[in-house]
């Protein structure tokens, strides 16, 4: 990391500690013990580590889903909607599957990826065809997708056995991604990490990645390089959508076991800010996503040990991003990956 980047990070960390401590004091808690409790709840035991990884996985996938279009200069916040779309598609495959059982899992996973990719292509097409700003269109589509899930679990896909809580039937074991030992850590994490490695190579060491950098730096150069901006918009959004869709179907099939409302738990928004803070660099994205996932996962443990509502971790997450944004001054507008 360059000297100025290290300075920015330290300044951000300091500001975060100040802001978070102030918040803890305001709610009548000792900051030191709160930070300690968060760390313990996040990583204090094998179980805690497992839960942190589980929470981090969709955040990482959504961060990568934001990062790939961002390399082209697109500011897409649509990972959450793509996550839901993937969950819907994969669940649909599970419910309607009539093929041979061994193929159910790959079909569900591929269906999830396809659903996410298609949902991502929508704002991409709108941008190409009508110049629609992708930040706003993806935000709106997020809500449409979330509402679609609610519609399905209250209606056509409602599990007659789940009384008060509307949800679909549970995913059968053969449709679930394999997990690690006793924890809920699932293969989705491995796929995410493998995708990160692959993307790092593609973006940094191939002509495709260079082309994205060129178009991002100056979209008018498409004629010089004979690249098509429109085609890359579609491609990068689709790649992102695939990853977010995977997050969705993983959450539905393995982590939560069924499709239900608020499946995403804010992973899309967290993922966006993780990618932003990482400067759209893959390596940093992984670390920051793991950290944020750990923070959010500590909420339940925190509730038990410190008797504060788990939403405290949501506030702390918000303060983290505010601090990081505030400390890194002099950034140019739009996306950049320095």
């Amino acid at each position: 990391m360059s000297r100025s980047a290290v300075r920015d990070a330290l300044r951000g960390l300091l500001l975060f500690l100040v802001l978070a401590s102030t918040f803890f004091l305001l709610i009548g808690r000792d900051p030191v013990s709160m930070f300690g409790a968060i760390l313990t709840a996040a990583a204090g035991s094998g179980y805690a580590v497992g839960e942190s990884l589980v929470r981090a996985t969709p955040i990482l996938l959504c961060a990568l889903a934001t990062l790939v279009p961002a390399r082209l200069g697109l500011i897409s916040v649509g990972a959450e909607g793509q996550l839901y779309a993937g969950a819907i598609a994969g669940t649909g495959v599970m419910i309607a599957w009539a093929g041979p059982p061994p193929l159910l899992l790959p079909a569900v996973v591929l269906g999830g990826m396809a659903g996410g990719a298609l949902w991502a292509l929508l704002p991409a097409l709108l941008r190409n065809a009508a110049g629609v700003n992708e930040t706003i269109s993806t935000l709106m589509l997020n809500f449409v997708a979330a509402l679609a899930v609610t519609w399905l679990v209250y209606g056509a896909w409602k599990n007659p056995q789940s009384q008060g809580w509307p949800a679909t039937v549970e995913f059968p074991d053969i449709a679930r991604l394999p997990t690690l030992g006793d924890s809920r850590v699932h293969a989705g994490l491995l796929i995410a990490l493998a995708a990160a490695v692959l993307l790092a190579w593609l973006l940094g060491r191939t002509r495709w990645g260079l082309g994205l950098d060129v178009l991002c730096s100056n979209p008018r150069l498409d004629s010089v390089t004979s690249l098509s901006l429109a085609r890359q918009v579609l491609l990068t959004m689709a790649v992102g959508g695939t990853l977010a869709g995977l997050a969705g179907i993983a959450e539905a099939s393995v982590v939560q076991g069924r499709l239900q409302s608020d499946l995403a738990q804010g992973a899309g928004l967290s993922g966006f800010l993780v990618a932003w803070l990482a400067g759209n660099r893959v390596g940093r994205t992984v670390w920051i996503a793991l950290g944020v996932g750990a923070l959010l996962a500590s909420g339940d443990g925190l509730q038990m040990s410190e008797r504060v509502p788990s939403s405290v971790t949501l506030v702390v997450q918000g303060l983290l991003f505010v601090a990081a944004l505030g400390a890194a001054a002099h950034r140019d507008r739009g996306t950049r990956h320095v």
Partner: protein
Amino acid sequence: MHLLLSGIGKRFGAVQAVVDADLEIRPGEVLSLLGENGAGKSTLMKLLYGVHRPDAGSITIDGRPMSIDSPRTAVALGIGMVFQQSTLIPALSVRENLVLALGEGRWWIGRRGQALRALDERLQALAPGVDPEAAVAELSLSQLQLVELVKLRLRAARCVVLDEPSAALAPAEAQRLWSLIRALAADGVAVVLITHKLADVRACADRVAVMRAGRVVAQVGAADADDDRIVGWMVGEAPPAVRAPSGSPASRPPRLWIKDVSVGVARGIDLQVRAGEILGLAGISGGGQAELAEAIAGARPIDAGEVILDGELLRAPRRAPSPSSRLGVIPAEPLRNAVAPALSLGVNLALRRFGELPFRVDRAALERQAAQLLERFAVRPADPAAPAGSLSGGNLQKLVAARELSQRPAAVVACYPTMGLDVTATAQVYETLFGLAGDGTAVLWISEDLDDLLHYAHRIAVMFEGRVVRVLDAAQTTAFELGAWMTGLAGPVGRAAAGSSDEVFA
């Protein structure tokens, strides 16, 4: 108002923009402040206007020393400045802009109040023909300047500074501007005219001050100095001589044929550029020259017609444009149009052959290969890993030239290539560009500098409102004739009287 600037100094970071500058501005006089780009003229005047604060020196107004710490203060003192980029707000109406400019007043403006009617009347008196309700964006360039001057008159400015006002005006509009400036001076206003064109000086200046490298190197009466002395002060040495084009290419075969091309505003453009010929293209901005250049470059689809290079079809409607190694393109504003600012010099140099790069790209290798090319084209600083955005305008253009011209293309399209560059950088770009012509390349050169066109081009085509209205032999025409064709003043009469040395169509 009598102003005296003494010993003014200002530095920005490591750059000393103004050093120990003395300047006297007298009422009722037009002082022309000359200098190359970067000489410090604008900075000095911005110090007077309170945009910046001087590090050293003093400003005395009517004998009293003043500290001008903001434009508000300057305006209150009666100093007004018309910037190169108009500070009128395009989306608001003329009336709204003037209300804003007049500063304090009642909180309620309304629509039809008495104060507004009084304002409208004064506007009509000073600038007849300008509609107060019209949005500033709809005004022509000379109307814009008129409103800027009205703004200053309304504020009863006693000292008016104009920063390069004639930069984009046609000769006739420039005439009107100069008479306005003389009228201002006749009213007792102290006028400062910042420019780098000697024609402005000869037209209306009483005194001349020249700046070079941040210092005021001369302050004399306009009648006391001839052009060569002034240029000598500006440049500090004899201006670098660029070889004028040699040979008459009239007999050579055409290499670049723009065949009945229509794109955007430009309609039915038919031009041929021969081997080793420099064909200049002049016209008021917005007349279609830029679109034409973009279409030939492949940055814009052609609506109709064809572009043929060395007998092969290069551009046609509905045909996907692909970069050709036989055509070099040097656009205006390289940072905006030709360069990826965030990427390194080495990568930028490789962009022309992007399609031929292997799938696995080693950016460090690209940077190593670039070093030689950077040396050859004198790009400074010659660090292949530095981001392109860190280069100055002149070096950016040299970088683009290095990329486009290093493979000895068959033809080159240069679109305002020296815009914003100082004399030295301009000379370097011309040297490269016209040197190629000497080797047989066909050069299509779009420029707004009529003097340069007349000096270096073989033939000059003039565009007006999207059409080529005249093609003239550069050696046998003048700036005024070009200007007349550029503004449509010379019409079909001139076209019908085509002589043997003038061609309408190549």
